[in-house]
């Protein structure tokens, strides 16, 4: 029995996880969600820009559809919050796979808030080069993005008319599935060189890497994965996919904790059996 429990077929664990996700998705028990300080900082920063006529926020979409369950909800809610507060939004993408997701997010938010393309928001599209793009934007925004994804000149659009360099943006938020925030792009170049205020939204797997930057102040706030997006939905009072997704998330966490406890318990039982069988060891 102990041997079988110590060597559980991993497919049994998969089955339990599948059952946990399915049951919790079909019959959810909504649990309270308390926004954490790191999420609240992003919300408060955007709220602080309310009332400023020339406030412009840059939102960078640096993720792919594989990370959409964790980040897309947060992106839509942040766009809606900006647009609801009459803050202009400029979008860009450093990952090619993010273009479709960014366009979907802007379409959803702009329709919900009745915002006009070119006047209240625009999407610049994808540019390869990552750090090169940021350095280019830091020196001259127009030379990096002469036109947006629809071919409209950035010099002609009201939303980007006042932007000369990257530093002219009041706030930059990067939704990142990789290393664009901490290693390759935003913190080393945008924050360190051009002193932009940066907020981050990352997948949960990257979250531990971001905490040193929160402590040092290089990162203004952080949304961590699905939980961060759910907390943001709570702040903007817009229950959505992220809050609904936290229910199965919690259920699976409980299942995994139980398996870990079981595995450790069996380990100690096995160790005691070994000591009893071979007391000279």
């Amino acid at each position, binding site marked *: 029995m102990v041997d079988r429990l110590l060597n559980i077929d991993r497919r049994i664990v998969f089955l339990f996880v599948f059952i946990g996700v399915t049951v919790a998705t079909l019959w959810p028990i909504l649990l309270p969600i308390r926004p954490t300080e790191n999420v609240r900082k992003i919300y408060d920063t955007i709220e602080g820009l309310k009332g400023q006529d020339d406030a412009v926020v840059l939102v960078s979409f640096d993720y792919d559809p594989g990370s959409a369950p964790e980040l897309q909800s947060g992106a839509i809610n942040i766009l809606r919050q900006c647009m609801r507060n009459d803050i202009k939004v400029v979008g860009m993408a450093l990952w090619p796979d993010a273009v479709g997701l960014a366009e979907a997010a802007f379409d959803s938010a702009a329709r919900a808030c009745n915002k006009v393309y070119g006047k209240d928001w625009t999407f610049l599209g994808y540019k390869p080069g990552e750090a090169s793009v940021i350095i280019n934007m830091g020196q001259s925004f127009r030379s990096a993005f002469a036109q947006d994804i629809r071919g409209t000149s950035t010099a002609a659009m009201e939303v980007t008319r006042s932007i000369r360099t990257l530093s002219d943006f009041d706030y930059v938020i990067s939704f990142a599935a990789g290393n664009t925030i901490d*290693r390759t792009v935003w913190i080393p170049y945008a924050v360190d060189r051009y002193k932009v205020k940066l907020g981050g939204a990352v997948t949960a797997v990257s979250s531990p890497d971001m905490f040193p930057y929160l402590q040092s102040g290089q990162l203004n706030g952080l949304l961590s994965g*699905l939980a961060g997006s759910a907390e943001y939905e709570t702040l903007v009072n817009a229950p959505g996919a992220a809050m609904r997704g936290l229910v199965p998330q919690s259920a699976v966490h409980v299942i995994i904790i139980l398996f870990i406890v079981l595995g450790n318990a069996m380990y100690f039982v096995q160790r005691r059996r070994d000591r009893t069988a071979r007391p000279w060891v």
Partner: protein
Amino acid sequence: MTTSSRTATILFASVFFVLSIWQLVAGKLAFDGPGLGTLTAAGITLALFSFLYEDNPLFKIAEHLYVGVALGYVFTLVWYTTLLADLVQPLFMNARTERALLLVVPSILGIMMVVRIVPKVSWLSRISFAWVVGFGAGISVTANVSAQLLEQIYPTLAPGAGWEPLDVVFLVTGAVLILLGFFLLHGDGEPTVMHSWVGPALLTLIFAFSFFYDSGMAALILMGVCAVLVYFFFSVEHSGVVGAVARVGIWFLMVAFGASFGFTIMARISLLIGRMRFLLGDWLHLL
């Protein structure tokens, strides 16, 4: 094909076909563009999930399909948004400007990089790679030294950057405890308490206290940074006081690995939840 592989193929294919036919017959999915799209996505999702049971041909088909489609999508996007808009049009289609001529040299370097696949002229790619590596190293060294190193050192050490009186108390207490642990020997010279559960339990208590009291974190971080750095310093034998401090570093590393593991699980489960919501909602209309 092994028996398990055949089982996985038959099982997942059967589930897909039975449930899809049910949805089509019940009228919840139509045989039009969006409906076929949903069915295709559901089928490929299940094919990929079939790997959890056993590697099988269904999974291999889906895997290769994913790589091909992703590559095709990215190539198309890069062509229209970058190569055509920023290279071909300025050089060959629009009125040529001096600025456009600046694109010639980088274009040649880019082509030289691609000719690596031709053995006779593959040496040309070394010039392009040298340029890329040199530029990358030059541009990133200063940026990363500043952002990753110097900007991190200051808040860790400087009392003015968020240190509180309780941080000093924790630091002194931690130093005293490490020395105590060193002096409680086991006879063979090794500090036995550092290898028991006492240290991690004490660390947990200190962390819990500072977490709920909302103070003292800066000292914990400094202790952790120094202890982990000592652990990774292998030029000195890890015995005595150095060994005790290195042991503390191991505890911090274990906590960090545990946190990283937990966050990774959370991320992967989030992706599963996204797919399950699609299968249960968009495909089976159960939500």
